[in-house]
């Protein structure tokens, strides 16, 4: 195994005076941002609340276009910030976190919409007493309490469109599953919605007013179970709200003709100019006289063009002709509809074939099947990758014509059941991440390093369609911070990485595109950091709402009151052996609290306790490591992580990156089985093989002997070939086969012990035989024994057992 230490240093430019006051780092928590959203192109004042936020300095926006223009603490747990939202900001959900002087919070989201905001005003909880609102495009910021229903009344002219779109569950506060309806003055429901594929658990409704008059918009939780955190943003107005766009993708840099579908009146056609470069979260916005749609329809950017289905194409013979790698687009228009496309493929070409439907927020749950020219089914799929969408990778067996079929899983169909099949070549990819330490939370998903101290973390490296060593880049770290990480071996998917902040590093942080690349320079793929901001869970276990994030929040924070050190062992740990690893806490004066120490990264085959405590006032602890018989031999980077109560939250630091060497055992011991009677001694013969010569004497003792059985510790050296353990038993020693007897062998090197656990045997202790009853028969036996040479032959255990068995047999026959 070759490894290269890679250290990238950024020398601190500004030397700050280190405060002599003991500052305590903390772990800030962000639980709510209010208001839950704002209009693009405006300035908003946000109230961010959670825990330990009084020293907040910066909001880390995961998207472009947000500018923090002022910050002001409110109390220990919240602060106000003025934020400017650029007009170019993508509409929808944006992730942010807060950096304080003492840490980085977990993720939270903020929503950007196109309309000005207005506040919901109670009482509006009955149909008879609604809140009056103008029918102009606006966003109501409201909240649903338990069994609460909010009603809004608008005046509409005949033919005027009334639209409502609610952001509720997606705001990520709580399990609030909104329902909305548009009612006429007689309470007749013109449109109602609980969940919609377009908006997940959220809802939307859009109608054309059948006559002049008042209309009521109702918003509530679908099961009347709102709570104090059930905030919503309801876009109300006359805006167009298409449920789908067709086609739902186009070629990068091109202008595409699209049709917006699923609106109450006529469909809407438009031309869309697509960006030249790939971007996540791309969507298109419908616009007409009623205004701009409240949120975009998902639209895929693709390097190739489009093929649109031509009906009728419901069987293979009428399949729409198409060419790969253009994307095939279609709509499953009615219940039972089936679409076929035919195309040619070349022998041995392998393609990733995705049918995008739900990922486009289409109601379609596609089932995709591939057939050859004779109609023979080749492969198919309903759901893949935890999504209703279909996917398979296929290697075409021969040149020729193939056809692909799409239908709905439940044989449903509709005007907005849009789908799109994309063919992409198999490409390598790498994702980086930080493994979760708590099952249901974002703890330790960010990096914040106290000045003059260290933080290490494990990182996961997920390779797809690719194998080999990986080098972590660590470019762009905050000022005064360095990273230490060995090259990640091909067979490892988790790896320790250490970040160190200089004592004079300025307090500050950023979002970092944390990357890696293959050690093999021929591979061009770049890996990026990926994480998931999970926001709403069901029964505390399954995720109902969350959002991927692709930048690592990293910061230098105030000093911590202690640091940790692993005393670098001078000897290896051997397979089937153990090691007492010493860990020292360097406490600042006055800091005496208990420090919890973890040992997060364990090379294959190394095991230990999940944590151990350095008691209050103490500064050392022994962390016992064990290696199993298959522990991977080599030199491994390891670190210890400390967690201590800093007074306002947990303060976390780590030790330096130490090296743990795992070696094969120096010595092999083979123990013979032995048998004896209660009170009699037994010899356990032990064959010694020395595989790694060592200096001086090693000590060995038998462990696991039964009650009142004893053997003295013995010495051996690299020349020793055989040992005999004299085991003394007592009459009280229990009868039976005593397994689990083994040797504890300690070789001393460089003044440190190397503990081995070797051999394994069994000692059988029997009851003494009853005295023989008939003596006459015993005499001839004695005579026969006489001529035998009295050589002190040591019987092997097997021979002994046989002899004893014979004796017992004889005794029992008598």
């Amino acid at each position: 195994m070759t490894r290269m230490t890679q250290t990238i240093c950024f020398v601190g430019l500004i030397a700050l005076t280190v405060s002599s006051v003991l500052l305590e780092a903390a772990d800030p928590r962000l639980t709510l941002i209010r208001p839950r959203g704002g209009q693009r192109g405006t300035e908003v004042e946000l109230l961010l609340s959670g825990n330990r936020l009084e020293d907040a300095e910066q909001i880390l926006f995961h998207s472009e276009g947000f500018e923090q223009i002022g910050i002001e603490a409110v109390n220990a747990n919240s602060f106000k910030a003025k934020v400017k939202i650029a007009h170019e900001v993508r509409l929808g959900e944006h992730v942010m976190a807060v950096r304080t002087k003492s840490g980085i919070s977990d993720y939270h989201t903020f929503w950007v919409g196109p309309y000005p905001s207005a506040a919901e005003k109670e009482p509006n909880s009955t149909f008879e007493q609604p809140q009056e609102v103008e029918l102009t495009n606006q966003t109501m910021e409201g909240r649903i309490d338990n069994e609460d229903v909010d009603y809004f009344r608008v005046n509409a002219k005949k033919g005027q469109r009334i639209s409502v779109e609610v952001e509720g569950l997606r705001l990520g506060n709580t399990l609030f599953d909104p329902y909305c309806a548009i009612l006429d003055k007689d309470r007749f429901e013109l449109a109602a919605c609980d969940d919609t594929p377009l908006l997940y658990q959220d809802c939307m409704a859009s109608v054309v007013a059948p006559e002049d008059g008042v209309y009521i918009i109702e918003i509530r939780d679908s099961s009347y179970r709102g709570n104090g955190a059930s905030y919503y943003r309801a876009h109300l107005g006359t805006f167009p709200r298409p449920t789908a766009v067709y086609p739902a993708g186009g070629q990068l840099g091109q202008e595409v003709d699209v049709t917006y579908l699923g609106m109450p009146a006529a469909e809407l056609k438009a031309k869309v100019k697509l960006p030249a470069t790939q971007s996540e979260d791309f969507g298109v916005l419908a616009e007409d006289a009623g205004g701009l749609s409240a949120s975009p329809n998902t639209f895929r950017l693709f390097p190739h063009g489009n093929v649109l289905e031509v009906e009728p194409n419901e069987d293979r013979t009428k399949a729409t002709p198409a060419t790969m790698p253009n994307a095939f687009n279609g709509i499953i228009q009615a219940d039972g509809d089936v679409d076929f496309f035919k195309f040619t493929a070349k022998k041995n070409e392998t393609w990733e074939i995705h049918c995008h439907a739900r990922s486009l927020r289409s109601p379609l749950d596609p089932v995709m099947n591939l057939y050859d020219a004779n109609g023979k089914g080749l492969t198919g799929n309903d759901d893949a990758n935890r999504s209703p969408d279909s996917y398979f990778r296929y290697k075409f067996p021969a040149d020729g014509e193939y056809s692909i079929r799409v239908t709905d899983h439940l044989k449903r169909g509709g005007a907005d059941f849009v789908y799109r099949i994309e063919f992409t070549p198999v490409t390598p990819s790498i994702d980086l991440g930080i493994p979760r330490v708590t099952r249901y939370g974002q703890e330790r998903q960010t990096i914040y390093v106290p000045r003059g101290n260290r933080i290490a973390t494990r990182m996961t490296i997920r390779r797809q369609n690719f194998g080999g060593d990986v080098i972590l880049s660590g470019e762009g770290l905050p000022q005064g911070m360095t990273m230490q990480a060995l090259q990640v071996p091909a067979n490892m998917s988790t790896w320790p990485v250490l970040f160190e902040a200089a004592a004079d590093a300025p307090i500050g942080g950023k979002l970092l595109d944390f990357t890696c690349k293959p050690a093999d320079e021929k591979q061009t793929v770049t890996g990026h950091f990926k994480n998931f901001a999970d926001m709403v869970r069901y029964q505390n276990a399954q995720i109902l709402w969350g959002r991927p994030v692709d930048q690592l929040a990293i910061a230098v924070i105030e000093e911590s009151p202690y640091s940790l050190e692993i005393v670098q062992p001078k000897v290896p740990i051997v397979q089937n052996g153990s090691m007492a690893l010493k860990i020292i806490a360097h406490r600042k004066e006055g800091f005496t609290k208990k420090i919890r120490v973890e040992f997060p990264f364990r090379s294959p085959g190394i095991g230990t306790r999940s944590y151990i405590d350095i008691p209050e006032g103490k500064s050392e602890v022994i962390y016992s490591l064990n290696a199993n018989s298959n522990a991977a031999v080599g030199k491994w980077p390891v670190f210890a992580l400390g967690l201590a109560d800093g007074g306002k939250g947990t303060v976390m630091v780590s030790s330096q990156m130490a090296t743990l060497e795992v070696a094969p055992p120096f010595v092999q011991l083979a123990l013979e089985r032995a048998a004896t009677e209660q009170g009699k001694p037994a010899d356990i013969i032990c064959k010694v093989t020395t595989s790694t010569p060592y200096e001086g004497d090693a000590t060995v003792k038998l462990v696991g002997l039964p009650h009142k059985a004893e053997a003295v510790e013995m010495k051996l050296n690299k020349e020793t070939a055989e040992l005999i353990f004299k085991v003394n038993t007592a009459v009280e020693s229990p009868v039976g086969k005593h397994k689990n007897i083994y040797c504890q062998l300690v070789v001393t090197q460089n003044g440190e012990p190397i503990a081995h656990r070797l051999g394994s045997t069994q000692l059988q202790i029997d009851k003494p035989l009853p005295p023989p009853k008939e003596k006459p028969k015993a005499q001839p036996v004695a005579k026969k024994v006489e001529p035998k040479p009295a050589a002190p032959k040591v019987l092997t255990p097997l021979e002994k057992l046989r002899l004893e068995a014979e004796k017992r047999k004889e005794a029992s026959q008598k």
Partner: protein
Amino acid sequence: MTNYRSLFTILVTAGLAVGLSTQGSSAQEGAPSELRVFPSDVNLSSARDRQSIQVQAVYPSGLTRDVTSEAKLSLANAALAKMEKNTLYPVADGDSEITVEFGGLTSKLPVKVTNHASDGPLSFRLDVMPVFMKTSCNNGSCHGAKSGKDGFGLSLFGYDPDSDHFNLTREIPGRRINLALPEQSLLLEKGAGQVPHTGGKRFEPGGELYNTTLRWLKEGAKNDEGEVPKVERVELYPKEAVMDGEGATQRLTVRAYYSDGTDRDITSQAYFMTSNDNSAEVTQEGIVTAGARGESFLMARFDTHTVGSRFIVLPKGLQFQWPEEIAGNNYIDNFVHEKLKKLRQIPSDVCTDEEFIRRVTLDITGTLPTVEEYEIFMADSSHDKRERKIDELLERKEFVEVWVMKWAELLKIRSDNQNSYKAMLLYYNWLKDRVASNTPVDQMVRELLGANGGTFTNPPTNFYQLERDTLKTSENVAQVFMGMRIQCAQCHNHPFDRWTMDDYYSFSAFFTQIGRKSSEDVRETIVYNSGGGEMKHPVGNRNMPPKFLGGDIPDVKGKDRREVMANWLASKENPYFARNLVNRVWSHFLGRGIIEEVDDIRVSNPPVNEPLLNELATKFTEYDYDFKKIVKDICMSRTYQLSTQANETNETDSTNFSHASLRRLRAEFLLDSISQVTDTDDKFRGLPSGARAVQISDGNTSTYFLTTFGRATRASVCSCEVKMDPNLSQALHLLNGDTVNSKIAQGNLIKRRLDEKKLPQDILEEIYIRTLSRRPTESERSALNEVLLKNDNNQQVLEDILWALMNSREFLFNH
């Protein structure tokens, strides 16, 4: 303040006693009006064949008598058959006729003899297996179990003849059966009690059962080869009997019809049972002896078939006259009266208007009539006021809510870790919508059982999400929609019903192709037709084709099996569907099903009034499964409107609806009534304040009160989920618990009335009407007025009276 409470309780509960009196009787005899001869023909088709003949005389009074031994039986061609007692044995092939004469009446039946000389070897299944059933060898308390019991492996009730044959002949060779010396086979020696046998002597040495077994052993103890005729149906004679006094006897004859067209007299092989040995005892020879007055269902079991006849036992020489003035309100009364006439019982009088308004309002809406409703109804003197009241109540939303609650219990609508509250609420709302819009039940059931899609987007799919086990699902469908408990047949042929393991697994085969996959929302599951998956029979591991219970094998190729099943289930072709539903409705209004328990419909638990049940089912089908119409029919009937007061002829009746029964209020009705009386609101999760307990959507929502009073947990589909038994906790909770007391305080009704300057006497009247829908009686009024006069604190006295009324049995029961 509770000083007067015990006094009041005694006072207000005195009105509910049911009087007792004795009855007179005298003899009744004369010439018979009808002669019934069973069976209707005689077919003797082998040398071993025989047929016993039964003669039953019917007298004008309706009494029947077994006159077989007194009747004169003469065979036209005496050369064809030999007559011993009442049994014919073949002598020569040919056709003839038997003439039966008694009491001046004659009857003729054809006789046919074929193959009189043929006496082939015995069949293991047809001849020997019935011996094990008749002697109880293969029942659960002896050797019958999955792999046998007590050292001898017989399948329970003979569900696996091949394994039985194997165990008889191969398990302990040479000992259990000894083909060299058949008489010394342990099988015979133990059965005949010649050697010690835990089960004692099961048959006589030399008797028919012994001889059959012996002959089979002598013939080599062979298993059947090839196709063996199946028993297609079994008939028990006589079909009914009305026996005159204790000690009267009636012989039973059982005949089996086989798939090869032959029939056999199997009286000696059938196993006889009675549902009420107090009234009619039966011996294993098939002789019924009358006991105390009452009804009994006599049953014979043979092969997998159980058949029965209804016997009525009357006191010897009972005098009876049906009062001419009693006329039915509708068809229901006609059937009930027909039955009562047979039982010599006169229905009670019609209940008072006060009783009627309370009863019908509680039954239809689950609420008490308000004071205003009471006053309007009592002031109305028109003759059709009861009908108009029923019509009015049926239009109330509370009627819908009661039935939604009942369906929700049957469909187990209850959230848990696997089923989210939202899914259950949507399911409940779907149900509410269907019941409220008066969707015909057949359509609703088809929608439910054939449901595909997401548990949120198509809520009836929750039926398959709440129960994911295939066998349990099929059991639930049978129990809910056909009222049958087929669980027994999972492991053995049903001992008291017609269902075999084949029936069970073939019915379950409709539910083997339910696909389930997760939706994008973790709380939702998508239920769909997976199109694959078969049901295996545990004996022989063969695939079972889907077959309707008691119906055909449909074509399911390429179809959604559940849709096929649902279409049959909720159709007129399914004889059980409408009967089950009307029986459930009947049970709600009369306190007892025509078949009781309502979900235990089986051959051995027959309806007490078969024609009534059939007619109700026919009407329900004609009404297009419209609940309201059938409920109106029931409520309009005189039978429903009877008083609870029995007369001397019907005081012992508890099954034939000759008088109304006292019915404990179910938990939801009781709590809602207490809240209504005290003018207070309840708050349940997910419902606005003031919602009623009947409206609770999720079975997981409950209160201490509801749980104590036996609210259904909705953990199973069983009708037994609703507990109607009284217990100490209930009594203590009403007396001392926080419901009645604190609701009186919370509602503050008395103080409000006093503040309105109402007279205490008027308030007293109001609280009587509120709780009991009647005014106080004169004695109650004077006693309570006296207490009111003696005390300055009228509020306390009146509150105590209200408390006492709510603790009275008159309040706790619907009567």
